[in-house]
């Protein structure tokens, strides 16, 4: 990749105010092609707010958010509607799982295909060959994704009946169905047991290697963060306090004080 190309995601000076509360204060972050980047910080640091700002759920007070699918031209997405952000190739999962509980596992994933398919009302009623072909492609692709996250045997179960860890993986499969170039994972290992967490780590690595999707993840489990990430950003009270490789960050005194220190206290 040439030096001139844009990062996939480039956020600068992101600030978000909720009334008097400044949840984010001038945060910079970028994710380049093929990277796994972690965003860490103590509770209520503003990590989820950061995700919500860059995916269009909130419109940030200040700052610039650019995305670039191939590095040749970039697009400013401040205040863009969430569905358009997804359509432009940035997909996410949620910290407090947000599946479609009474739809089946497979249907959940097929819904993710919505923005990559086109058939309308007429197509649905006539069920012409084009619609059928598109529908079949969605189903096949969704099964494929379910296999990737290891949920194919639950395809016809209702999403709400899945165990917790499986629900998290289903959310990942669903967001991958939107064909993103970058995937944002909000605490994907939360509530998982050690074995599930290890499998999740493998999954994230596979997403990068096989699907060529870059990953930005928020995670509290430091083992996961250290093993997966190429680079780490640390935020505290809405402020970026450090950034760098896992070694750099784990040696950074500010981080040890703010983050690791807090963990030792706890």
């Amino acid at each position, binding site marked *: 990749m040439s030096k001139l190309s844009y990062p996939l995601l480039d956020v600068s000076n992101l600030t978000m105010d909720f009334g008097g509360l400044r949840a984010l204060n001038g945060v910079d972050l970028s994710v380049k092609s093929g990277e796994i980047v972690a965003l860490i910080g103590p509770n209520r640091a503003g990590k989820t707010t950061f995700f919500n700002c860059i995916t269009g759920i909130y419109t940030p007070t200040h700052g610039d958010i650019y995305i670039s699918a191939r590095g040749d031209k970039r697009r400013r997405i401040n205040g863009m509607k969430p569905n358009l952000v997804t359509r432009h190739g940035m997909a996410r999962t949620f910290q407090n799982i947000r599946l479609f509980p009474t739809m089946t596992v497979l249907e959940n994933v097929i819904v993710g295909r919505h923005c990559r398919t086109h058939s309308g009302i007429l197509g649905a009623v006539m*069920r012409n060959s084009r619609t059928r072909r598109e529908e079949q492609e969605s189903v096949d692709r969704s099964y494929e994704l379910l296999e990737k996250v290891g949920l194919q045997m639950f395809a*016809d179960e209702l999403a709400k009946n899945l165990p917790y860890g499986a629900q998290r993986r289903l959310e990942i499969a669903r967001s991958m169905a939107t064909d993103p170039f970058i995937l944002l994972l909000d605490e994907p290992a939360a509530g998982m047991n050690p074995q599930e967490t290890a499998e999740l780590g493998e999954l994230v690595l596979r997403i990068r290697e096989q699907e060529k999707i870059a990953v930005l993840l928020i995670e509290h489990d430091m083992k996961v963060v250290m093993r997966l990430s190429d680079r780490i950003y640390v935020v505290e009270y809405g402020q970026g306090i450090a950034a760098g490789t896992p070694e750099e960050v784990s040696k950074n005194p500010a981080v040890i004080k703010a983050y690791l220190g807090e963990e030792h206290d706890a």
Partner: protein
Amino acid sequence: MFGIKKSLLVSIWFMFLTFPLMVIRVDTIEKTVQWRWMNMVYVGVGAFLFSYVWRFLLERKAAGSAVDAPAATVKERFTQRILTDPKMYRPVIAIVLVGAVIFPLIMDTYQVNIMVTALIYVVLGLGLNIVVGLAGLLDLGYVAFYAVGAYAYALLNYHFGLGFWTVLPIGAGLGALFGIMLGFPVLRLRGDYLAIVTLGFGEIIRLVLENWNEFSFGPSGISNIPRPGFFGMAFDMHSATQYLYYLMVAMVLFTIFVVNRLQHSRIGRAWMALREDEIACQAMGIDRTKTKLTAFALGATWAGAVGVIFAAKTTFINPASFTFMESAIILSIVVLGGMGSIVGVMLAAFILVLLPEYLRAFSEYRMLIFGASMVLMMVFRPQGLISNIRKKDAYKRSSDA
């Protein structure tokens, strides 16, 4: 026992509450007071029994969901099989269809007429089911679109002499248009707020029809609306009703066909996703605005079309046919039927329309029975008569096929 004690308390409380009403009677002519102690006994015994049975059922329900879960799933499986296994449901459909065809030939005009009304409500229920059951948008003003269709036919016929078959698609189109008109201002609203605004919308339409005399002829309504013709042939009363009946059967079949296809399509899944989680739905790249508007429009289309048929059936319409009560009944059909279930909605439409017709003797207690049965449903079977059954084999991989 604890339950008996509670029920006793309830019965004493009721005897006390109803004492002035049920026991004391002042005879104004004789200027005496009658003490009807027997009534108190009736109230007491009645309240005790009612409370006890209620408690018993509630307890059984609680126990049932805890202990007898497997039994419940077996029952669910059975309904599931009837509704999803072609071997089971094909004969049922055949019998129903044959029955539907011969019904008007063996029944008198009165019966056929009632059945036409029931079928109208089936279509209304299926239409509202798109909005409420599939897309999860609580719409309390649905009757407005029904009124739009009915008045479209009445007025277009009165002023321009347009025939039934011309206005039928126009009514449907106007329904869709009004659906979008309602949809726009309520895009940001959800739940209770949405319900209140849609309720207001329904009332606005009715009040306009009631008060804008020059346009809609006010409360006196419009009469002499022609029945649908059949290539210029005129019918006598009975065959006209038969004709309308077959028309409605065709309409119901068409509605089922379309709604079923919509439900199992890209758009139908978007509606369901919207119902389940609006934020996640948007995060999946679904345009919330477009999805809501299509739901409102496609739901209202059926009310518009069926409104035209209603006007043609009664040959007389006025705003009194389109009160909030109608919206409430249609919504009850959707809720009673089980949100999103086509078979359930049809069943509920028949129950809610036919029962009151045949129980004319109890017409005074109609609303009471109606309310009581709603409460009972919500307590004991909140998922509706037939909960929405997911077709498990609806999606096959191409390699399996």
